[in-house]
């Protein structure tokens, strides 16, 4: 009884939110509504800057922060948001949702980290237990890819969501081998220098986040989309040339004003490291990125079928990107 009642309540709440969103969408049709699958953090400062720049170009942008990428994708499919942030390959292939990616924002940046006391190389992980984010996640796909390439076999893959949680578990000795993000890697290096080894990871070039939208929206709002794509591409190129500039942008556009000082000091090193690792796609991904993703995500289980048989145009709409690249040139 209690269960049914709570389900009913949440159903009513969802309906109310839906109606409110629809009403607001009818009132302000010209607004470009962008759905984030995560809360704004240091890691999204450059993207927030790019949105501010697109606003300067006359695009009216409204950003909503949702709990997960799945929900952001559903919001775009359901028409409650125009542009989503994420990599909805499975959604496009399995349910034929009419959405297309049009700009790659980042590639997967993860670092397999092992406790140096026990392991030194990939080969040492043969027959050992490792921890990744979740089933079907990018981190799992990376580890499976390396398993295949190195000719080893893990005894067990356990799931610990959250890179910071896995970093903590590694530091405390609860896990001996896992895969962490850039922030986790820096934490390992500052907290326990020399105690952990980052294993080499080459040739993994899959999309972590991309911008996607309904095909109808891309048709109708080509001018706005072009401005957003251009703002992001030029911002990405500037960050890569001078990562320190992100701190200035934060002050200039008053982004994340409530950021605690400890995190604000992380901005510099974070973008420094990503720029050094050429993590910002300077040409927006497009067909090349799509081909890499096909290979990677068929392995992770997001996509099914032969990578070679998948068509770029079923997942990507590169027209806007092509126009912008013709204007600003490729790098």
């Amino acid at each position, binding site marked *: *009884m*209690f*269960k049914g009642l*709570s389900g009913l309540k949440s159903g009513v709440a969802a309906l109310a939110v839906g109606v409110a969103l629809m009403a607001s969408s009818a009132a302000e049709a010209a607004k470009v509504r962008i759905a984030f699958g995560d809360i704004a953090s240091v890691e999204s400062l450059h993207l927030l800057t790019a949105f501010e720049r697109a606003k300067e170009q006359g695009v009216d942008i409204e950003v909503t922060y949702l709990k997960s990428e*799945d929900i952001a994708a*559903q919001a775009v*499919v*359901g028409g409650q948001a125009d542009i989503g942030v994420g990599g*909805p390959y*499975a*959604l496009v*292939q*399995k*349910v*034929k*949702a009419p959405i297309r990616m049009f700009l790659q924002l980042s590639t997967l940046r993860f670092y397999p980290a092992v406790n140096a006391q026990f392991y030194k190389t990939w080969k040492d992980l043969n027959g050992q237990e490792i921890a990744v984010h*979740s*089933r*079907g*996640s990018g981190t799992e796909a990376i580890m499976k890819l390396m398993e295949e390439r190195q000719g080893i076999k893990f005894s067990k893959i356990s*799931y*610990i*969501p959250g890179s910071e*949680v896995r970093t903590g578990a590694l530091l405390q000795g609860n896990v001996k081998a896992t895969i962490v993000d850039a922030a986790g890697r820096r934490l390992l290096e500052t907290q326990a220098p020399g105690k952990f080894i980052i294993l080499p990871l080459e040739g993994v070039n899959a999309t972590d986040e991309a911008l996607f939208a309904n095909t109808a929206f891309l048709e109708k709002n080509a001018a706005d989309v072009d401005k957003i794509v251009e703002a992001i591409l030029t911002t990405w190129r500037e960050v890569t040339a001078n990562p320190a500039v992100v701190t200035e942008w934060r002050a200039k556009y008053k982004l994340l004003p409530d950021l605690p000082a400890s995190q604000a000091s992380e901005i510099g090193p974070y973008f420094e490291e990503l720029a050094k690792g050429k993590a910002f796609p300077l040409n927006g991904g497009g067909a090349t990125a799509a081909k890499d993703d096909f290979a990677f995500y068929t392995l992770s*289980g*997001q996509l099914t079928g032969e990578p070679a048989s998948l068509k770029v145009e079923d997942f990507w709409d590169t027209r806007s990107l092509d126009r912008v690249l013709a204007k600003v040139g490729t790098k």
Partner: protein
Amino acid sequence: MIAPTQVDSQVSSQVNGPARAVHSPAGRGLGLGRLFARHPVVSRLVSLGLFFLAWEIAGRVPISYAFPTFTDTLYAFVTMLADGSLVMAYGSTLQPLIIGIAISGVVGVVLGIVMGLSRMAEWLVAPVFVVLQSAPMAALIPLITFVYGIGLVAKTLAVIMLALPVIVLNGYKAVRNANPSLVDMCRSFQGTRLQRITKIIIPDASPVIFAGLRLGLAAGFIGVILAELLITPTGIGDLITYHRSVANYAEMYAAVVSIILVSTLTLAALEAFEIRVLRPEKRRG
């Protein structure tokens, strides 16, 4: 709070029972109505059938790209049952549930009885459980991980947090509201306090205590699923999150429906047991 509602609903169903019997001889033309009255199973099946039909239609429209049809979901359910993934998932989901319910059951009944018998214990303990029962648990469960990590302990604790208040409060109300004339009778027969508790109060309170256990189990199901969705995805929670992340919506719905099914069947079985053993007077003829 829950105990009176429980009793109310059963009283009202008793009231409704004869009402149906009054209607059926009059409604000779309504063959369907008579059929339903004579075989309640038929009406349940028809109601389920209509629900599945509506689902199938909604899935075919479709109301959302992420909403599968009933037949797709059924197919996914059978596939997951056949390949063992559903059975494996329940193997890990039921662990924290059973441990949590066992602990909540023992601790909850004892605490409830003590609170019912002693005003002092009531003042000390009751407010905690009243607050716990009205607290939004979905917001509190992620906090468990700060102290207890992400393992079995955290999930068991999530089950206890949801199940224990219901069991305690039901037990306490049952004991406090034990039939006063029975208690007076015991006193006039010069029964000792111990005899009054073991021979009169607890037996008289047991049906409501048992109803509390049943409601506690229902809350425990909510707790374990919340924990698996919010702490670490294991068992059914893993099936739901994994299939959602790779857009296998039919499989995702099949996992959701399966947990509803398991929880409903378990509760129905417990209710049947309760009526048969503890409340023979409630058995419908």
